[in-house]
């Protein structure tokens, strides 16, 4: 345990700690930019430099190991001056475009510039003029803003193993680019948006579509209907200054009505429906010797990943559409009839924790209702902006109710938002359907939590069903390689593209560390716990939907509206 002194404060830190970690221990703040707490050390921005006694050169705190007897000064005039110069040099290549930037007021570089009182930059502003990449329906890149920290590359290549991003050239010419210097759409990018959370600035972001929503609301002929994904509520509060999980559902509904949505419904409803369809699909495959293991298909980042990297295993994917798309297909058929609203007048919006959902909604096959099933996808962040723009006071807003027919949900729908949730929800239902008995304990805790790959075995009246759960595509890849090799012991595998599941989705409030993901997971299970009904097959609106319209799981209507197929993505370079 090296003992070191930081700004006169003595601390003992574990062997192998960096100065930065020691400083955190001592309660001393050292600024960082390229450093990311959940990633490897990069040490390329130099903003964290400190004075170390005995060394002429300033040392980067994020990479320099703390050694016995080390004496560090983190706030001497020499250090502050150096950091200021480093910032000025970075800013000399950064568009002075903060007012127009998606990350205005949520940018690490902007905060540093404010903290270090950057006023008149002595260095001449030289922006590279590379222009934006708007090639995908979900993400944009703005390479002029890139500070070359390489955090997005690590998110994409190490965490997700998608490898859509890399560095091109070096020195002055160095730039983060999609594969082979192409546009993002030509790279293997699956639009999960994890790079957005990794980016300290506004060099990557979601394609913002707030104006499209406002135009629909402004049109008196249009009936604007929305669905809210399971992981949205608990994180949306963060966007309006509330602790994670604290924004009540009925207040969120009131907020959306204030903005002008004509009807507020819930994706949790189709999450429950997904369990009915997918649970029966699993049972059918088990009984009739269908392709196993079956993979869940709710996460469009994951299904794209499968289409891109494992096209040989597409038959293992459940044919169930994601809850978003099931909702879209039903809202313009079943719900339109129930409400007596012509489908042609419905503008269906979904509020999602996800960037890949923007892409999913635009897929040409997602028009089972005869119209585009989901007209517009807005991320949690976009709705957060809309709430701030509208000046809503959530402390004072009177609660409001959902519209009927597609808004009731159970705790099983709620937990779709966390890794392991779809599996747990499926097990709750499958168990009762198969055994005809009531589950003694609905909590399958083995499938919960942040462990990369989780597994469990469930005994269904003599039949052992082995399941696995992976979140983050790097973990998914491991499970998939096993399936490809014919060595997978599992019957059913849940995969979510994003670390932690949808609560950590690419459209969620900027998530700086995994700690935040853990808080959100906690909030998911609290919400489930508080639900009176926690099994999808007991959702009375879902029961009614089957009685009046679908008739049976996997039936003719379900097949037409709720199931889909996948296509190998013809990506030339991976």
């Amino acid at each position: 345990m090296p003992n070191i002194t930081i700004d006169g404060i003595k601390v003992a830190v574990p062997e192998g700690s960096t100065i930065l970690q020691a400083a955190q221990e001592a309660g001393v703040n050292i600024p960082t930019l390229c450093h990311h707490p959940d990633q490897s050390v990069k040490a390329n921005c130099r903003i964290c430099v400190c004075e170390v006694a005995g060394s002429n050169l300033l040392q980067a705190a994020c990479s320099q190991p703390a050694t016995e007897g080390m004496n560090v000064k983190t706030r001497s005039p020499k250090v502050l001056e150096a950091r200021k110069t480093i910032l000025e040099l970075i800013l000399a290549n950064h568009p002075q475009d903060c007012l127009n930037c998606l990350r205005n007021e949520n940018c690490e570089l902007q905060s540093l510039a404010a903290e270090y009182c950057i006023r008149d930059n002595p260095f001449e502003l030289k922006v590279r003029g590379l222009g934006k990449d708007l090639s995908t329906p979900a993400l944009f890149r703005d390479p002029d803003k890139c500070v070359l920290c390489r955090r997005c590359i690590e998110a994409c290549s190490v965490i997700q193993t998608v490898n859509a991003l890399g560095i091109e050239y070096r020195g002055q010419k160095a730039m983060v680019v999609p594969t082979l210097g192409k546009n993002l759409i030509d790279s293997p990018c699956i639009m999960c948006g994890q790079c957005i959370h990794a980016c300290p600035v506004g060099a990557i972001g979601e394609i913002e579509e707030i104006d499209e929503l406002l135009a629909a609301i402004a049109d008196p002929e249009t009936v604007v209907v929305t669905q809210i994904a399971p992981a949205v509520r608990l994180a949306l509060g963060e966007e309006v200054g509330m602790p994670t999980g604290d924004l009540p559902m009925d207040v969120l509904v009131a907020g959306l009505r204030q903005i002008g949505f004509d009807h507020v419904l819930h994706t949790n409803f189709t999450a429950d429906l997904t369990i009915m369809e997918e649970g029966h699909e699993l049972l059918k495959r088990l009984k009739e010797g269908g392709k196993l293991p079956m993979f869940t298909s709710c996460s469009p980042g994951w299904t794209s990943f499968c289409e891109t990297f494992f096209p040989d295993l597409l038959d293992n994917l459940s044919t169930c559409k994601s809850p978003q798309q099931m909702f879209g297909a039903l809202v313009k058929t079943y719900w339109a009839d129930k409400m007596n609203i012509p489908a042609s007048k419905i503008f269906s919006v979904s509020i999602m924790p996800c960037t890949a959902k923007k892409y999913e909604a635009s897929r040409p096959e997602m028009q089972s209702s005869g119209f585009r099933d989901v007209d517009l996808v807005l991320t949690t962040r976009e709705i957060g902006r809309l709430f701030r723009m509208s000046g809503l006071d959530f402390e004072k807003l009177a609660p409001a109710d959902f519209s009927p027919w597609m808004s009731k949900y159970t705790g099983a729908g709620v937990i779709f938002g966390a890794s392991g949730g779809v599996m747990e929800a499926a097990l709750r239902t499958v168990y009762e359907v198969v055994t005809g008995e009531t589950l003694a304990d609905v909590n399958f805790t083995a499938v919960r939590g942040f462990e990369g790959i989780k597994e469990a075995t469930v005994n269904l009246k003599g039949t052992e069903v082995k399941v696995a759960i992976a979140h983050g595509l790097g973990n998914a890849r491991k499970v998939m390689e096993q399936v490809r090799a014919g060595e997978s012991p599992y019957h059913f595998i849940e995969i979510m593209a994003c670390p932690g599941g949808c609560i950590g989705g690419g459209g969620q409030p900027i998530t700086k560390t995994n700690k935040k993901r853990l808080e959100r997971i906690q909030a998911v299970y609290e919400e489930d716990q508080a639900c009176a009904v926690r099994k999808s097959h007991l959702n009375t609106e879902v029961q009614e939907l089957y009685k009046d319209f679908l008739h049976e799981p996997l039936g003719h209507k379900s097949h037409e509206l709720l199931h889909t197929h996948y296509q190998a993505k013809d990506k030339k370079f991976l």
Partner: protein
Amino acid sequence: MDYQKILADYVEMPGGLIEAFHAIQAELSYLPEEAIIQAAQVFGIPAAQAYGVATFYSMFSVKPRGKFVIRICESAPCHIAGAAKVVAALEKELGINMGGSTPDGLFTLEFTECVGQCQAAPVITINGKPYTDVSPEKISGILEPYRKNI
């Protein structure tokens, strides 16, 4: 061009990717996209990474170049010894600007950093072969054999 054949020779070698790129470039003067994609597959790395290697080293080019790549040293000693005049003479002789290639696909002009022959500056290299003490008058003589050797 059969990249697989070239790549196969280097796949077991440590750092073989760079050697393989050299070998491909010896044939084509540049690294076509297809070569990078195939190299990535053979070496079992993502294409994004193989492209990173191909662009990191200035001796590789991912853009088509002439059969003979003439590189003019622009580091300080050569600069002082009159590299600028050599540049002007080469540009005039070939009718192209620095960075460009002749329409017949024979020559490309590029800058390089110090090539370690500062004792006899200015220096140019043609496909890696150094020519020292270059002056504008010597240019056409130096190019002569390359022009014939189509």
